[in-house]
Structures are given as structure tokens and as C-alpha cells.
């Protein structure tokens, strides 16, 4: 049996003359949380729909839990999914909506109330879906995705509309599921959330995969920034000159000097500043966050 939850090879979807997804290649190992990120219109939802058999790829292949995406009946009983926001029948209650899906999938009806309790909707189970807030609708969507007790959970923007505590709960839920062996493939705009939970990352831009692999590898590959602040603001021009004379790119951001350089150079920088009679009030090396890396890689200027 394959040790991959998802694998796609040259997956392409073309609408007319526009390629929504173009020769996508990536793999998601079993039992991990994989973030799926990219700007709006990058092709994330189209990719997810192809993985779930909802739309047919123009070309390319893919497997989910070891089965071809052309045979969704073989893997969907083990997959939970919430695609592009929660979609339910407005006139049915939350519980009744889940019962419809439980009946359809052949899952035990007792699971409906368990899951509603799990996502914090136990007391609103009998309320009609149309009366739910956006956050509650989102929670119901997550509950529906958990109905099959999935081996793979695919969530498209699961934290949309949730308040901070709701976001925290979803994050903890994903971690808990992953710890129990469930693979989680999650797309989100909240990159700080993805950075906190995702071991793997697939990054899309204009329908193309621009990165796939360990989140750690992506962040480590980014150039760190040395942030320095002189004790006296008048010393800032001299500090900038020291960095530039050493061949590094330096810029002043909010009374602080940002120097793009290897982390090891910070000790040399500190010594050079001291020799020039400058006392540093602050000296730190930071790596770019996922959000900064994302913008670097996904904006036209950053990518080119």
C-alpha cells in the first residue's frame, strides 16, 4: 500500500483557453497535515475538486489513498471533505442535514449528534441551517466532513467566518486528527495558521505548483534578516553604510535597520558597529514568516 495520502502527476484542467491548473505535481504523505496555499484564483479549489472526482482533469493523473482519482468510489468512503464553504439545505436543521449525508454514505446516525457536539453545535442541532451564523455553518461543514471517520480530510478554507476561539478549536482538531493518523489537506488564507500546523506545504500560483515539500525546508531556504537598532538614532546612517560596505542590502524600517544577510554575519556586524563607536540597542536575526515567503513567491515581482 502507498504511503501517500495524495499524489498528482501533471494534473491539468483547462477551461476554454485558460488553464486553471497546469501540470501540477505534488505528493502528500499519509498521516501529515499539508497546507495548500495560493492566491485567489490560483487553482486550489479546482485541484481539490479534481481530487474528489467532481470535475474531470483535462490531462494528468492522480491518486488519493492509493486509488486513481478516476475511481472516486474506491477512496471517497474514507475521505471527508468540505469544499468551497459549507453547502446545505436551508430548510433542514443542522442535524437533519447531517442525517441526509449519513444516510447517503451509510454512516451510523448516532455519529450525527456526536459530531455536532464535537464542533460545538449540540445545542443548535435542531435549528434550521438558514438561521446559522457563518461560523456555525462552517462548523457544520467540518462536522459533515468528519462523518466517515476519514483517513483523509480535505478542507477548503475551514476557518472562514470563525472567531479566534473557533480558529483555535479547528487548529487543535486538525492536530488531534493528524496525531490519530488522519491525513489532513487544508487550504487556507490564514498563513500564520498553516505555518503553525502544516508539516508539508503545496503552494500554487497561476495554476502551477511553485513549491511542494516540507514547510521547514521552504522557510529554511529563505534568506534571514538581521534587524538592528542603534542606541542613538543619529547613528543610523553610519550603520547603513557599514552594512552596505560589507556587500549587504540594507533598509531602514520604522527606526530599525533590516539587513538581508546570512545569520552568521550578525556577530561581525555587531563587532563592526562597536569598532565604529555605535552601541546597538537591539540585534536579532529573524527568518521570514510563511506569509512573507508566500508573498515573495506568489507575487509576480517576487516570483520572477
Amino acid at each position, binding site marked *: 500500500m502507498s504511503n501517500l495520502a495524495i499524489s498528482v502527476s501533471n494534473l491539468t484542467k483547462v477551461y476554454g483557453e485558460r488553464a486553471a491548473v497546469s501540470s501540477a505535481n505534488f505528493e502528500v504523505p499519509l498521516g501529515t497535515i499539508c497546507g495548500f496555499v495560493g492566491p485567489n484564483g490560483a487553482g486550489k479549489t479546482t485541484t481539490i*475538486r479534481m481530487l*474528489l*472526482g*467532481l*470535475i*474531470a482533469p483535462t490531462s494528468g493523473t492522480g491518486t488519493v489513498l492509493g486509488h486513481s482519482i478516476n475511481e*472516486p*468510489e474506491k477512496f*471517497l468512503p474514507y*475521505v471527508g*471533505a468540505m*469544499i*468551497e*464553504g459549507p*453547502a*446545505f*439545505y*436551508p*430548510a*433542514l436543521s443542522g442535524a*437533519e442535514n447531517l*442525517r*441526509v*449525508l449519513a*444516510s*447517503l*454514505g*451509510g454512516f451510523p446516525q448516532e455519529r450525527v449528534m456526536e459530531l455536532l457536539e464535537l464542533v460545538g453545535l449540540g445545542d443548535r442541532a435542531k435549528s434550521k441551517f438558514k438561521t446559522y451564523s457563518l461560523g456555525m455553518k462552517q462548523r457544520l461543514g467540518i462536522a*459533515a466532513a468528519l*462523518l466517515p471517520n476519514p483517513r483523509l480530510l480535505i478542507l477548503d478554507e475551514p476557518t472562514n467566518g470563525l472567531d479566534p476561539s473557533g480558529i483555535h478549536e479547528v487548529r487543535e482538531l486538525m492536530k488531534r486528527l493528524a496525531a490519530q493518523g488522519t491525513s489532513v489537506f487544508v487550504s487556507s488564507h490564514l498563513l500564520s495558521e498553516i505555518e503553525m500546523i502544516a508539516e508539508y506545504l503545496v503552494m500554487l500560483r497561476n495554476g502551477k505548483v511553485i513549491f511542494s515539500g516540507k514547510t521547514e525546508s521552504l522557510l529554511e531556504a529563505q534568506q534571514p534578516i538581521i534587524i538592528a537598532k542603534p542606541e542613538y538614532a543619529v547613528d543610523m546612517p553610519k550603520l547603513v553604510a557599514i552594512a552596505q560596505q560589507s556587500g549587504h542590502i540594507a533598509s531602514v524600517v520604522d527606526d530599525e535597520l533590516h539587513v538581508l544577510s546570512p545569520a552568521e554575519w550578525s556577530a561581525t556586524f555587531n563587532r563592526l558597529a562597536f569598532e565604529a563607536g555605535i552601541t546597538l540597542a537591539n540585534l536579532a536575526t529573524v527568518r521570514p514568516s510563511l506569509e512573507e515567503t508566500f508573498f515573495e513567491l506568489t507575487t509576480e515581482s517576487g516570483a520572477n
Partner: protein
Amino acid sequence: MLRVIYAEARKLRRPTLALSTTAIVAGLSVLFTSLVYLRINSGHNTRRGEFVSAAQLSQATGIGYGFKLVAAFLGLVALCIFASQTAQEYTYGTLRNLLVRQPARMKILVGKCIAMVVFAIFMVTVTAIITVAASYLLAPGAKVNTNLWATSAGLSYLGHTFFNVLLSTIGFGLFGMILGLLFRSPITAISVGVLWNLILENILSAALSGSAKWLPGQNISNIGEGGTIDLSYTRSLLMSALYLAVGFAIVASLFKKRDVAN
């Protein structure tokens, strides 16, 4: 397949749909039956200014007269329900949930269809019970003799009428389902279905002599009537089956192949 039928039944039995549909068919049944019996002395007590006398209603066939009168409206109700229940999966975006839980698309389609046919059977049965009960209640006041109604001839006629009305109602329902799958919008599907059957077909059959025997709505409706002198029951049955089979084959093929992108 049973899972799909059961899941669909959960949606159909929701109080807002089941109770309102029952109320509508019950109301129509009582209204139309009452008009026949309460206006029996007015000279025009049935549709299009026709008249049915107390003597005619006292025949064995009188038991099913009110029921037959409501049949055309049952078809319209079925068309609306089948169309909206099908098309709403697209407008609500719920089709993707259904297909993730049951990827065999034809099973979804056939299962939905069977569940809605069961709903149609329920609707026609309720109508039959109410119209027959109302007829018995109103008959004495209209001086209609009901002695022949419960005879084997009367019950056999009622059985045949029930079967024909059921076929016609299911036919209109399938017509609505085809439109729902084609237009993927309940409002459009229902509007097109109602306009076609109530207005366009009537204009065409009035303007072009003999065109009624080629029109789908006229043929499906004629099944409920049990056939007429101008249009035989067998021809209507075959024509309706042909139209529905071709229509269903086209939309089923679209449903199977079309990307679910909403």
C-alpha cells in the same frame, strides 16, 4: 441505491414541503369537488364551462369524477416539486456533498427519481381519498345517488383512474426533473415548465389543428384523462414515454459528464 432513496426521502418529508404540498392538494381536492356538487344546478359546474349532471354523477363512474378533475393540477404540483428538488442541488451547491458521499452519479439520479415517485404516489393517494370523501359528503345535498359508486364497476373505475392519474402525475414530475437538470435553477425550470404546459401548448393546440397529439404536455395530461376521442390513451402513453425517455437520456448523460464546479 436504497441509501440515496432514504437520503432523498429525508428531504422530501420535511414539514415545510410535505405539509404544504398536502395542504395544497387537499385544498384543491376540496375546492374542485365542491364546485362540481355545489354548482350542480348552475349549468356549468366543471372546467371550461362544461356541465355534469346529477344523473351522470350517480353512475358508477361518479365516484372518481372529482378526483379526475384535480389530476391536471396534481401534474403541475409534481412538475414544480420534481424540478425544484433537482435544480436546488445546483443552486444550494449541495450536489458536491451528495457526490462526495455517493460518487456513482446515476445512482444519485435514479435514487432521487424513485424517492420523488414515492412522494407523488403519496400525493395522488391523499387526493384520491379526499376527493372521494368530499364526493360522498356533498352528494346528498346535490341529489346525487351514490348507490352505484361502491359497486365493483365503480371501484374498478376508481382504480383505473387512480392508476392513470398517477402515471400522468409521475410523467409531469419527470418532465420537471428533466427541466431541473437542464436549467439547474428551480425558478427557471419551473417557469419554463409551467409556461410551456399551461400557455404555449394550449396556444399551439388551439392554433394548429391536430398538433395536440404531438405535444408532450397534452399527451401526459391525456393519460390522466384515460384518453379522449381525439387522442387515444395508447398513443399518449407511447408518445409520453418516448418524450420522457429521450429527455431523460439527454439530461442523464449531461449529469454524468458535467463538471460540478459550483
